[in-house]
């Protein structure tokens, strides 16, 4: 019986080994090798000296942080709104989920029409009399970071909303009824019941989206270009454009470390039992 269950796990183990473990280990090995085939930290030294690498790290952190704040706030608001009952709820739910089905590269192209110099956003602001000259939404660094984070939030907030909605629906209604009987208002119910009991779902949403946000790739590349480097686009350009697999691997390895550290820190703060539960 034991052997049979082990045998049943073999395809999964094989899959994980071939498509996850081997590439990750190969990348790590590559990052510690020099082009001459020696072991060393040359690739990491090259990264430290690279004029764009520091920016790539900061941009990745900023987009991830800003994006997560927007996604969790908007996702929570949408989930709370959808948790109640109202007319047209099904239609609203479908409409809110549409961005999730749009491929990222299509979303990036769409966002170019929104945030371009002659894009819809500038046009709307101009017609409202709020602008006389168009704004280049991806022109300066921090504006570009905000624009990319916003575009990413538009795309993935529905996922966060779905996770949180499932969490909300798992909270027993009786708790709210008891709170109302005791005279608790909507805000008190939200802070004392909803938010604490939603912690497992929030943790799950944070981890899923956090890992994904660190790996953001197509949006910054298509929306802004190379002058807003993030770690994944940095690794891509190093590998494909400049033919430097070692610095590309080193950059990817650091991205992996950042993801592991962030998830680890959050689990430590939020409590890993939430995930286990």
């Amino acid at each position, binding site marked *: 019986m034991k052997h049979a269950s082990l045998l049943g796990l073999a395809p999964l183990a094989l899959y994980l080994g071939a498509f996850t473990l081997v590439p990750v280990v190969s990348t790590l090995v590559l990052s510690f090798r020099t082009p001459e085939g020696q072991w060393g930290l040359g690739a990491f030294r090259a990264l430290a000296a690279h*004029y*764009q690498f520091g920016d790539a790290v900061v941009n990745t952190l900023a987009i991830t942080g800003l994006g997560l704040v927007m996604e969790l706030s908007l996702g929570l608001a949408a989930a709370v709104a959808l948790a109640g009952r109202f007319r047209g709820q099904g239609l609203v739910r479908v409409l809110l989920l549409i961005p999730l089905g749009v491929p990222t590269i299509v979303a990036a192209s769409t966002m170019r029409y929104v945030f*371009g*110099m*002659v894009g819809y956003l500038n046009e709307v602001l101009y017609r409202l009399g709020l602008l006389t*000259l*168009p704004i*280049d939404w*991806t*022109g300066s660094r921090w504006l570009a970071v905000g624009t990319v984070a916003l575009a990413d939030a538009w795309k993935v907030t529905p996922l966060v909303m779905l996770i949180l909605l499932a969490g909300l629906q798992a909270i027993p209604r009786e708790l709210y009824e008891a709170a109302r009987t005791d005279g608790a208002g909507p805000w008190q119910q939200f802070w004392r019941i909803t938010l604490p009991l939603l912690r497992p779902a929030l943790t799950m949403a944070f981890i899923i989206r956090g890992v994904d946000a660190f790996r953001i790739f197509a949006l910054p590349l298509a929306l*802004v*270009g*190379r*002058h807003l480097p993030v770690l994944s686009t940095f690794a891509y*350009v190093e590998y494909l*454009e*400049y*033919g430097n697999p070692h610095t590309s691997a080193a950059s990817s390895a650091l991205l992996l470390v950042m993801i592991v550290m962030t998830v680890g820190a959050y689990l430590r703060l939020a409590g890993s039992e939430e995930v286990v539960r």
Partner: protein
Amino acid sequence: MAVSMMQGCLAVVWSVLTIVLAVTGADAQPTVTITMRLAEAEWHVVRQEVLPRFEAVCNCRIRAIDIPPETLVQRLRAMQQAGRMEIDLFAQDNMRLRELVDTALAVPFTAEEGQAEEAIYPSLMAVGVSGGVRYFLPFRPNVQIAYYNAEKFAQYRLQPPRTWPELLAVARTFYEKEQIGRVLFTGAGGAPTTTQLYEWIVAAGGDPFDFAHPGTVDTFRFLAALRPYLSSESRRAKWNTTNEALAQEVAYLAQNWPFGVPLLVQEYGKTAIRTYSGWAGPVREAHVIGGDVLGIPVGAPHRQLALAFIRHLQSREVQTILVNRLGWASVRSDVEASVEAWLQPHVVAVGEALRHGIFRTNVSYWAAYERLVDEAVQRILWRHEAPDQVLPPLAARLATLREQQ
């Protein structure tokens, strides 16, 4: 019964053999195999309008295949080592020729074979020669020209710039009139940026592979002076997005390859877009010539037919088709009168640019060089760092690269 069955089988075998011999017999048409890297629409025109004319005249069949430029050398080498060369003629990017010569995969043309018609631009003949021997012949040149929005230029009573000071003045005027930069520099990085900068450096009398050369330093200083008046789209500008910027009137002046002409005029209906060869630097006017050249591999089975096909591709008739149907730049200076009226001014612009054409030096460290150019442009243009601070360390790294090769 058995005898009649055997006779029946023999009759079938005989019939099959007769058919096979009829198809592949000694008197069948020879098949010439060529390889080119073309887009689907380009293949359509070549297959429909270019190949049949040659097949009819030479009584042969052309088998056209598409081997990517980056794998051509390996494929030819494999065929050579197997003692079975299947390719009679190849078209290859003019930046990927060195290895074909170094590995002796390209066979030299004799002086007679290598002679070009008078109508072929002399500047295009330079690229096919190595060590005084001709290995390649021009077929499909490409050269960057300047696109401008004639309505906007007329609105502000401006003339298309012909020199660097005029370019700066035009960029400044647009900026002052509209508070937005309208001159586009292809500053997204990679090949588009390197190509544009290469010709600017040569136009300034600089050495593109020496960042300490006074002409190269002057080019970067000029870029820094131009920066405040450049369109902000310049950060993202590549060859494809340049068309978009011109079509949407985000930019009024930009350099790009001629493929944008049919796109802008026919697809976007931007009849106000005009073209000319571009501007000169402090020393000369220079435009990088891209595109493909033709070569014959070692052991090609039909060398004479391949040579005839090269002449066919270079002929006025075929070049006119390629210009009219695909908007390609022509190797010939005499197709202008034969092209459609709306295309003629653009063909003149391309011809003028080709007269000032230059070829990029084929260096084995091109990818590393491109990385240094990207860094220089990023730091000087988009991080506003001073050229005099940025260039010296990059010049040292470039010198090291040169020495290592």
